[in-house]
Every structure is written in structure tokens, then in C-alpha cells.
């Protein structure tokens, strides 16, 4: 009974989103992209996805590393290889439904080894409207598209 309840609870509360990140034509190594959930105060709440598996470089993504570096939550399951310039990447992320339309934000941070670091390449508030839109990036990301499953 309890298991069923928990199972039900989980399913009811989170939604899986397909998320496509289209990169610009930068040159050089593959980019690191970190997708995080920010609470209404603008603080990191949870790491949703990590693109780039060479942890040597994580500390270069300074804003996020202040959060992740301290907590060191296990991110192996949500880690993928870097994306190179012009490439696109589809990842699947899970967001709790309670975070939608309640002031939470999603942030896409990007960095390329030995090049710039964009703290908020893409950042927007999670609402039932924004989540369907195509959002333009300001750094290495050309745009992001999300789609609920």
C-alpha cells in the first residue's frame, strides 16, 4: 500500500521533459553545459543535467561549483559527453510539477575549456507557458527547446 502510494506520488509530482540544446558555431573543445534548478530567491536548488564528463574542469564553472563543489551530490546518472560547436544535444530532465508557476527558474550555464564562461547563457522562469517556448541563448547556446513527455 505504502509502495503504491509512493509510486503514485512520484508520478504525480514530476514531469519528464525532453530538452534540446542547439549550440552556436564556436571553435575549440566541446562545451560544458550545466542545467540547474534555481529557487525563487535565485539560489541553486538542484542540478538537473551535466554535459561534460571531465570533472577536472568543473571548478571552472564557478557559480555552479560553489553549490556542487560543497555538496558533491552524485551526478553520474545525469552526466553526458561535451557538445562541440554547431552540435545539438537532446537530454531528458525531470522537474517536479510543484516547481512550475511558483517562481522557480531553470538555468543553463556554459563554458568551453580555455574560453569564456557564461553564468546564465539561458535562464528563465518555469511557467506552463515558457516551458513550451524556444528560448534564445546569450553565449555558446543558440537556443533551447523543451517539451513535456
Amino acid at each position, binding site marked *: 500500500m505504502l509502495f503504491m502510494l509512493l509510486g503514485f506520488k512520484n508520478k504525480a509530482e514530476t514531469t519528464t521533459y*525532453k530538452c534540446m540544446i542547439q549550440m552556436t*558555431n564556436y*571553435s575549440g573543445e566541446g562545451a560544458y553545459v550545466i542545467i540547474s534548478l534555481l529557487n525563487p530567491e535565485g539560489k541553486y536548488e538542484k542540478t538537473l543535467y551535466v554535459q561534460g564528463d571531465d570533472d*577536472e574542469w568543473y571548478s571552472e564553472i564557478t557559480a555552479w561549483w560553489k553549490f556542487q563543489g560543497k555538496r558533491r551530490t552524485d551526478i*553520474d546518472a545525469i552526466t553526458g559527453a561535451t557538445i562541440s*560547436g*554547431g552540435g545539438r544535444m537532446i537530454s531528458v530532465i525531470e522537474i517536479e510539477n510543484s516547481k512550475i508557476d511558483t517562481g522557480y527558474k531553470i538555468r543553463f550555464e556554459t563554458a568551453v*575549456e580555455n574560453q569564456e564562461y557564461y553564468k546564465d547563457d539561458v535562464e528563465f522562469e518555469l511557467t506552463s507557458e515558457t516551458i513550451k517556448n524556444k528560448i534564445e541563448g546569450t553565449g555558446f547556446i543558440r537556443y533551447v*527547446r523543451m517539451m513535456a*513527455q
Partner: protein
Amino acid sequence: MTISIWRYSHLTLAISSSIFILLAALTGIVLAFEPISNQLKPYAVKHADALSLSKTVENLQAEYDEVIHVEKDKNNFVIASVITKDGKNETFYINPFTAKKIGDIIEKAPFFKFVTNLHRSLFLKSTGRVLVGFISFLLFLMAVTGVFLIIKRQGGVKRFFSKMIKENFNQYYHIIIGRYVLIPIVIVTLSGVYLSLEKFSLLPSEKKPHDINEELLVGTPKIKVQDFSLFKTLTLNDIQRVEFPFSDAIEDYFVLKLNDKEWLVNQYNGAIISEKKQNLVALVSSWSMLLHTGQGSIMWSVILLLTCIAILFFMFSGFAMTLNRRKNSIKIKNKFSKDAAEYIILVGSETGSTYGFAKALYKALIAEGKSVFVSELNAYSSYKKAEHLVVFTSTYGDGEPPTNAKNFEKLVGHVYQNKILKYSVVGFGSLAYKGFCKYAIVVDSLLQLHQKFIPNLSLHKINNQSFDAFKDWASSWSKNKGLNLKIEKPVNTPQPKNSKLFKVVSRSMVNSDNSFLLELELAQKLKFNSGDLFKVYPKNEQRERLYSIGKINENIVLSIKKHEFGVCSGYFSKLKKNDMVLADIKQNKDFNFPVNVKEVVMISNGTGIAPFLGMINNQDSNSVKSHLFWGGRTKDSYQIYSELIDKAFYSKKLSGLYISFSKEESQKRYVQNSIVEKSDLISRVLKSDGVIMICGSIAMQNDVLETLESISESKLNRPLNLNQIKTDCY
């Protein structure tokens, strides 16, 4: 002393980068195992390459809610990223025939991650990668300078792969292995450099975006994905990766990454809406990655592994050679300037070993109160007060001057000599080379043609740095000068530190040739073989004496000739049973009984028979046919050996015995006469890659080599292959 520019750069590069290369080679050995272990994982599906893309897509879409992408990794395992029926996003290996999961993605083990980081950046991130890329380039330069060194040594590009003579273990294998791993090293280093360059966007990159043909972005005619004709013709062999459309929107399409291009494909009708060819930079990158890491090929990974091991060996043998050369190049501090000295000694030496002899002569002359000046042949100049010139020179390769003598020929024509000098040339070399002392002959003739030089003694050749031969020359030279020189052995002979005790088992009577056999027992366990050397230091003498060992029933048998004033042989001839002898055994692998050959011919005269007495009585050599030639003075000379030889003959360990006597009434024959008679046997052995072993006097060796050469030329139409000859002569 001068060393050639190639050797100098080869060495400088090696010294400057050694620590990094050591690290890279060690980590490289570890990393070679990663692709091997990955390849051995059971995720490869047979015949998957032939499966069509449409079938694969159909299987996947039937099995899962949604497919994000499918790709083939470097090991040819098929990976799918999907959303399963219960809404979870997962990525795993699949069997494309069923689309079912067959395994989780291989995680790079933290250990390999650690080693990889060390290998490519020494944990220094970007700085480290620049450094490692640069070191990789230095290693490439070492390969290049190494090639030049081999070409020079072998005497031409065409002879790059021709056989070489083994004089010294480190040198021999440095070159032999160098020739084989040259290509892998060039590939590894260049790909390493490329991968580092790529890291720093130093390569031109032209990443053109796709140019989408808008007219083809139409939803009609609507065809099922598995019916796309494009997908039907493509097999998994053509595909690297397929990304499925993000949504149902017409602007979303399939992305097909093929081996050399990328296609965007309309998700409703299968039309190609854009094509992008892979550029050269990307192509070279992916090849560099494959070649450098060995991903996807067990065989190449193994080659990379062996290359790393070879690099370690190069470091070891290279530095060992350098240290050895250092040791040999004895610095001589001249007391007199070139214009003040009466005696001039000029040295031509590649490895520096000839300097030892020059130093010995220098010391002896100084002790006599003479003024001497020593220098290298390249520093040949005018000498104001000089009366006598001595040239000591080795030969490089097939008759080339050694590096520090390269300019001598030119100088000798230009430099004006005030006085007339009496000269003597001594050549150092090895009989194993065809051009034995060839450069010394050149120097001798150059001086002979020169007006200001008159010969003093004829050219003297010395084999294998024999100190006795050098002493012979020195005594006749000093006699000629009216001097009484005391020449001391140049290199500091190691004191008999490691001496061991041996007990006398028996000693034969001294026969009419003044020869006798001595059998010794080991007081402690020691490994040795017939052909190794018994090393004795006679009392009050620095110089060791060496005797060839015959090993019989684990005992040492020596055949010794008693010399009238011989300290050592005199001592041995007085030994009685149970006396103890202090000596050592020196390995002499080049003169041990060969394995893996069909036939062996042993040629000896006088006491040179000793190692062969052991070899023909050895239990293990049954499968090898052996023939023994021996030359002695009289029948009586043979008596002391007959028992041991008969024993071998009757137990069928010896197939043929050919004896000749030089001072017998009935016959006056030398060992080479018997060889000529048996030239059929000799040519058969040479032809079937057998080995000929020679032990005895140098004079006999020279005559025998000449005889063998003429047999080889006349019967086999080829020059004698010196790799088939083993000698131990004195």
C-alpha cells in the same frame, strides 16, 4: 671529443625530456589495457553491421516509447538513448536485432580516468597539455634523429634494414628494436601532437552550419519511417549516429552522422534536406584519436603497448650507452702544448675507448721524461718541435672515419708541417667487421703520401682492443725509439672483489706441447656454460687472465698452455688435487653453444679445444649435430684430450671428428687444410643456417676465416655471413 650533430641532438632531446617520456610511457602501458578490456566486453552483436537502418529504427520504435538517438561506439557496440515504456530516460547497449538492452554503458574506471589525466596533462590542465604535446614532439624528433643515426651507421638508406653485428647488447637492441617501432612511434607522437594542438584551437576549423533546403520541409507524402528508401539502403556499417526528431514539428528532422558526412532527413518523407561533408581537420582528429588510444582494435592496442615498453627500453639502453661512452672517454690533461711536445699522439675514436690506449702511452712517455701532446685527429695542426707522431684510430661503419677524425683528411693536405715527423699508425677494430681497421689503412696511406712524414713502423692492427697486441706494438715502437716504456693497462681493472673458491679435481701431465688439462670443482653454486670465461688475477698483477671453460659434469675443464715465464700458467701447472684456486667466472654468451640450429661446426687449435670438450659432452645438445675440427702439433698433443672426445663420440654426441697435425712425420697439415677437404660439410652447414664456432689463436682464426670465406664464395656464391660465426680467439 667531437660527437656528431645527430647523436648530440638525439642525446640532448632524450636528456631534456626523459622524465616526461618515462611518465608518458609508463602511463601509456597502463592505458593500452583500457581499449583491450573494452573490446573484450560481450556487447558486440554478430552481423549487426549488415542490418538495415530501417529495421533498426522499426525495432527500436516498437520496443520503446521514444528514441532520442542511436549510435555506434569505437568498439562497434550499438548504444541507444531511449525513453522506456515507464517514462524513464535510459542509455545502454542494445542488440539491434531485438532493440533490447544487453548491458549498461561502460563507465571509464576512475583509475583509468586518473591515469589518462596524468598521461595527457600531468594534472596541470592546459599547461600540462601544452607540455605533453611539446614532449611528444620532442620524441618525434628523437625518432627522426634516430633514423639518421641508423642510416649513417648502416652506411646508406638502402642498407637501413640490413643485418648488423652484435657487439654490445644495449647498442644492438637499441637499433634492432628502434627499426621496428619507428613507425608506431612516429604515429603515436604525431597523433599526440595533433590532439594537443586541437585542444587549443590552433587548427583551422571550418564549421559550416547546415544549409537546409526549405522547399523540402514538407509533410507530404507521408511515409512510415521504416519505409524510407534511404533508411532501407543504409546499414549499421554506414552509420555512426542517428538523432531522432525532437518533436512532430516539420522543422524537426533526423540527423544522420555517416562516416564521412552528415545528413538531415525530413521526418515525414525521408528526403535529404541538407548534406554536410566532414572536413579534413575533423577526419584527421578522429584518426589521431583512434591511432593514439588504440580504441576499437585489440591488435593496435597491443602494438601501442609494445611501443611503450620499447620506449622504456630505449631510455634504459640509451643512457647505459651514454654512461659507458663517458667512462671510456678518458680526459687527458696535456702537460705540454702542441708546439712544445716532441711526441704527438692523435686519436680517432667514435665511442672513446681508444683514448684509454692513448692515455697508457702518454703516461709511459711522461714517465720516461718525454714531452707528449695528445689530441684528436680533427685537431690536427702544425707542430713546431715534434719529431714523432702516433695515430690511434678506430673505424666507423664500413671504413668511415670516426666522428672526431672526419676533418683529418682535409687538414692533412692543408696544414704545413715545419719538421719531418716519423709516424706510426695503430688501427683498432674488430675482425667481425669486413672493414677491419679500414680507416687506419686510409690514415696510414695519407701519411705515406705526405712529404713531411716518414714511416717508422708498418701499420699495426689490433682486434677487440687486445691489450697484449697493443703491448706488442708498444714494445717494438719503443725499441725503435730507443726507449724502455712500461705500459700499464689503461682501464682500471676491477680488483678481484667477487672472487670465488674452486677446488682442483685433477690435473693432467704437461705434454710435449707444454699443455695440460685442469679440472676444477665449484665450491659454491654458480651458473655457467661451456664457452664462458674463467677469470684469474695472478699475484701482483692488475691484469686478469681469461681461459675458455669447458663444462663437464658440472665441473670446469680448462686447457692451459704453460709459458716459460707465464705467471698464471706456471701457477696452474703446479696445482695438485684438492688445492684451492681463487677466481671468477665471466659470462660469455656470444660463445655459448647455440640453440635452435641443426648443425654446429667447432674449429680449434691447441688449447682452444677446451670449450668444445664441454659442448660435445653436454647432455642437452643431442638434437644438434656437431662436428669438431682440431689442429695440433703432434699425435702426442692429442693424448690428453682423447678420453673426453672418445666419450662424446661413442655416446653419439659428436658426429664428426677431423684432426690435423702440423709437426708429425706422416703429415704436415693445419686445421684449415682439413676444412678445405670438408668444404661440402662446411657449405651445407652455412646453407642450413648452422653455426661455426672458432676457438684458438688469432692466426688460426684469420686463416680459417679466409678459408670459410672462399668456401662460401665458391660453393654458395655469397660472402660469408658473419652472423653464423662465433669466435673466441686470443
